[in-house]
């Protein structure tokens, strides 16, 4: 009976053991699983950044019209129109490829449209030129209507203006090529090339309601004009010649059109020219298939000159057309063999190279959202394509390398995610953020490592025990202080205080150690016999008046020093003599505040490590005649090195991941300089700052996930290394 109860008891104990083991293992695996899941999720959300673009044909049919000159598509990719040489405009419903509406431009007998150009990236407004020298401006509207919850796109067509380039008395001058722009102020610009190879310009000033006409042929030198383009806002006209020269006309002063500069871009005939969205970047294609990007850069004499920024992948044949995306800096280059390249300007990447049809491409157009493409070949085949190019602005090079953005004088690391206009190009270099994180960490560590470790040494080795019993928990409580409170104090209270008393702080930095040394010297002056009789900890109390005195000295001297050395205002002086701009919320303040958060971690762990050095080693060292400091230096510090290393690494991990303090105590400007008087933007703060700006699944959203992923990897690596090395160092002493 008794034996049975014992065996039952054992069984029960075994069962409890098993259950406990199960629960503990479950917990452990749960932790590992959730961390892996977080890492995986961060990666999953940022991974689409690396997807390359794709263009897929999903519909193709033969157009009924011959010689199509212009095509367009509505923003829902439901209808499209084709304009042919006879002025006929046919609207197709894409899903069944049926014509549902036809309009036309009324032309005279034998009059044919021989050139056409769209005047805006957002509206379907265009100008056509005829063989009789007439320029007809027209607009197509494709507006959605909702009837019974169903979307119907209605199309309308209207001719806006007709202009004859010649009188009826003279011979008609066919318009071989036309370029047209209508800007936001409703001013219009027409430029055309006629049969006499004259480049003419007509401008409508919407403010004054006046027309201006120019013939700028004379300014183009001897070479024959081969191509030209007007920027969408009408500020610039660029003309290219058969000799490979480019001429830049400034149209911003409508009454006085000036040739601003001219230069040679290639040896070959310029066959294609186009401004990308934003009117800054000019894409130049030539007869040999070379494709270049130029934009104006401030030169040494403070004038803007076009500069070649990128070469794109070369076409094998003459470039016949460049189609610009209305959404971003993507463009399509088309060559005479029907080969297409999808390029992105900033990365200079050619994302896709493809040949949709057997024959050459006649006409091409992006949809307003840039997610679809219509292409027409010379045999009138219409192809409808889906463009999947979600994040063209991001590549490994732009994220981690220097990119040459429009308006910048050199390639730079820039983080600027949002701007004022639709034409703004987001700049996603992670380098300034990584730099910011490291800078903040560096300053925090400069401040906290010496303080924390020295304090740990003092508390564990020298301080009277009753003193240590108060200090340690006090410093540990510092760790419990919410970082938002520290950040708040640092940003709103300390940074103005720092700015006001900068000189005081500098003097204190020098005076404090000096007075400390002085106090040590004075302490030594007291005879040892007397010193011995003082209660332990008296040395600490002895130092305090000296420190207070050093602070007083700093306060008293500050005004005089500032007046005498820094002409009364140190931040002004810094700016004038050293060209250092003093930001109120700077790395100095952050180092101080972040250090405050990091000190408890480093202190506590270091103190534990130092206290845990076996007493037998300490006593062995002391028994050999080593002084307490020699013992600390030669025995205790090496023995505790593993623990101290772990402490520093954990502090580093905390500093890297810390958000609120760096968010509140810096100006969050993503600049890259090491100056302690400037702020920075850390990765963690960047995520917090940018969240409201980041639409789900957008590029910024994914870049933020990438930042989070990197941050995670950073801290993971640091903690991992800390654990590994700390463990190895600790093992050395494990036998004690």
């Amino acid at each position, binding site marked *: 009976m008794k034996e049975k109860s014992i065996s039952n008891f054992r069984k029960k104990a075994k069962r409890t053991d098993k259950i406990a083991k199960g629960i503990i293992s479950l917990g452990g695996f749960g932790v590992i699983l959730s961390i892996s899941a977080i890492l995986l999720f961060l990666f999953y959300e940022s991974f689409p950044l690396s997807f390359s673009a794709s263009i897929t044909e999903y519909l193709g049919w033969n157009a009924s019209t011959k010689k199509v000159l212009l095509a367009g598509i509505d923003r829902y990719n439901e209808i499209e129109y084709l304009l042919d040489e006879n002025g006929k405009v046919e609207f197709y419903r894409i899903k069944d490829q049926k014509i549902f509406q036809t309009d036309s431009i009324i032309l005279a007998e034998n009059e044919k449209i021989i050139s056409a150009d769209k005047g805006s990236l957002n509206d379907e407004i265009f100008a056509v030129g005829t063989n009789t020298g007439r320029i007809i401006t027209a607009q197509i509207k494709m507006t959605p209507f909702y009837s019974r919850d169903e979307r119907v796109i209605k199309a309308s067509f209207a001719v806006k203006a007709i202009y004859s380039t010649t009188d009826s008395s003279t011979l008609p001058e066919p318009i071989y090529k036309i370029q047209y722009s209508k800007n936001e102020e409703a001013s219009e610009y027409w430029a055309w090339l006629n049969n006499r190879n004259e480049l003419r310009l007509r401008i409508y000033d919407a403010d004054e309601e006046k027309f201006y006409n120019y013939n700028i042929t004379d300014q183009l030198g001897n070479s024959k004009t081969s191509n030209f383009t007007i920027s969408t806002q009408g500020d610039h006209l660029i003309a290219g010649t058969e000799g490979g020269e480019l001429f830049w006309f400034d149209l911003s002063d409508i009454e006085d059109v000036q040739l601003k500069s001219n230069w040679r871009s290639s040896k070959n005939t310029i066959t294609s020219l186009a401004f990308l969205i934003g009117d800054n970047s000019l894409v130049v294609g030539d007869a040999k298939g070379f494709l270049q990007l130029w934009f104006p850069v401030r030169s040494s004499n403070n004038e803007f000159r076009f500069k070649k920024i990128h070469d794109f992948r070369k076409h094998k044949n003459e470039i016949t057309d460049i189609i610009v995306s209305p959404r971003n800096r993507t463009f399509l280059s088309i060559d005479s063999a029907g080969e297409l390249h999808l390029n992105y300007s900033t990365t200079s990447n050619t994302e896709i190279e493809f040949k949709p049809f057997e024959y050459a491409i006649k006409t091409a157009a992006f949809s307003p959202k840039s997610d679809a493409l219509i292409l027409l070949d010379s045999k009138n085949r219409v192809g409808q394509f889906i463009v999947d190019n979600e994040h063209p602005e991001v590549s490994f090079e732009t994220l981690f390398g220097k990119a040459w953005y429009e308006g910048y004088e050199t390639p730079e690391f820039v983080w600027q995610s949002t701007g004022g206009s639709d034409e703004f190009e987001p700049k996603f270099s992670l380098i300034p953020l990584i730099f910011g994180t490291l800078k903040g960490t560096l300053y925090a560590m400069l401040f906290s490592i010496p303080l924390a470790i020295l304090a740990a040494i003092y508390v564990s080795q020298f301080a009277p025990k009753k003193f240590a019993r108060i200090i340690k928990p006090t410093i540990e409580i510092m760790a419990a202080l919410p970082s938002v409170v520290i950040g708040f104090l640092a940003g709103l209270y300390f940074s103005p205080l720092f700015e006001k008393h900068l000189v005081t702080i500098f003097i204190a930095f020098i005076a404090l150690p000096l007075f400390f040394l002085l106090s040590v010297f004075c302490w030594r002056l007291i005879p040892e016999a007397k010193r011995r009789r003082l209660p332990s900890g008296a040395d600490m109390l002895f130092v305090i008046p000296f420190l207070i005195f050093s602070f007083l000295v700093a306060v008293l001297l500050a005004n005089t020093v500032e007046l005498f050395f820094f002409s009364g205002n140190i931040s002004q002086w810094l700016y004038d003599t050293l060209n250092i701009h003093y930001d109120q919320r700077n790395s100095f303040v952050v180092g101080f505040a972040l250090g405050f958060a990091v000190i408890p971690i480093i202190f506590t762990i270091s103190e534990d490590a130092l206290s845990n050095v076996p007493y037998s080693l300490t006593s062995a*060292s002391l*028994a*050999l005649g080593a002084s307490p400091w020699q013992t600390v230096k030669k025995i205790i510090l090496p023995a505790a090195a593993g623990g101290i290393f772990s402490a520093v690494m954990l502090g580093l991990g905390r500093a890297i991941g810390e958000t609120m303090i760096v968010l509140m105590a810096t100006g969050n400007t993503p600049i890259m300089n090491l100056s302690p008087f400037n702020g920075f933007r850390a990765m963690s703060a960047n995520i917090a700052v940018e969240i409201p700006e980041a639409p789900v699944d957008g590029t910024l959203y994914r870049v933020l996930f990438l930042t989070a992923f990197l941050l995670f990897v950073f801290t993971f690596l640091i903690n991992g290394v800390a654990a590994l090395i700390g463990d190895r160092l600790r093992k*050395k002493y494990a036998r004690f």
Partner: protein
Amino acid sequence: MAVNLSGAVTNKINHLQNEKIVIETKNLNFYYTPEKAALKNINIQIPEKKVTAFIGPSGCGKSTLLRTFNRMNDLILGTSLNGEVLIDGNNIFHPEVHLEDLRKKVGMVFQKSNPFPMSIKENVIFGPQVNGESKQSVLDGILESALVQADLWREVKDRLNESALDLSGGQQQRLCIARALANKPDIILMDEPASALDPISTGKIEETIEELRNNYTVVIVTHNMQQAARVSDYTAFMMMGELIEFNDTNTLFTTPNKPLTEEYITGRFG
């Protein structure tokens, strides 16, 4: 050379009259807590270049007494002491005395071997280095002679730069002896140096002590009465913080003066 035997110890130790006294305590009282004395009025004279053993039951104060000789008890918080400890006639508690000098002169070997986590060489030269010796040739000389004296040279001379922690327990303890010897002390305190060792290692330690007696004053605390009988010239028997009997080892073990001593050495308690 006044022999002041008062208090608990009243027996005369005639043999000491031929010896030069190195350590002498006068009315030494020691307190771990103010209420209870761990050493009560100890008066003892320890002769030069002899091996003196302290025996007694656990907690009798023999280690405490040993540790007052190099003031290791100073490290323990809340202790206090009165009376005098004279080494070479100087009170070591005098304010002018430098602890580091005292401890250089009075070396110590602990119960548990405690080599530093460094190489064998670094362990041995640690003492001379912290006491200001930096010349490599001198240090090399000290290294060899200390290891030879501790009877370890033959075993480690080819692995001086290996970690001391890779040595066996007995070797580690002899390394600690060598480390103490490297400081060229006059006195070596040994606090149960063989209590954690196997009989063979113990034998080696005892051999080492045997060799040291010619050049050093050795004070050894031991639990093992056979060991005390084997290695020591003089033996002090302590109990409850008092020095019960101090005599030359032979006399103490064969014809003890005090009944308590006899009871202890015959194993009736302890």
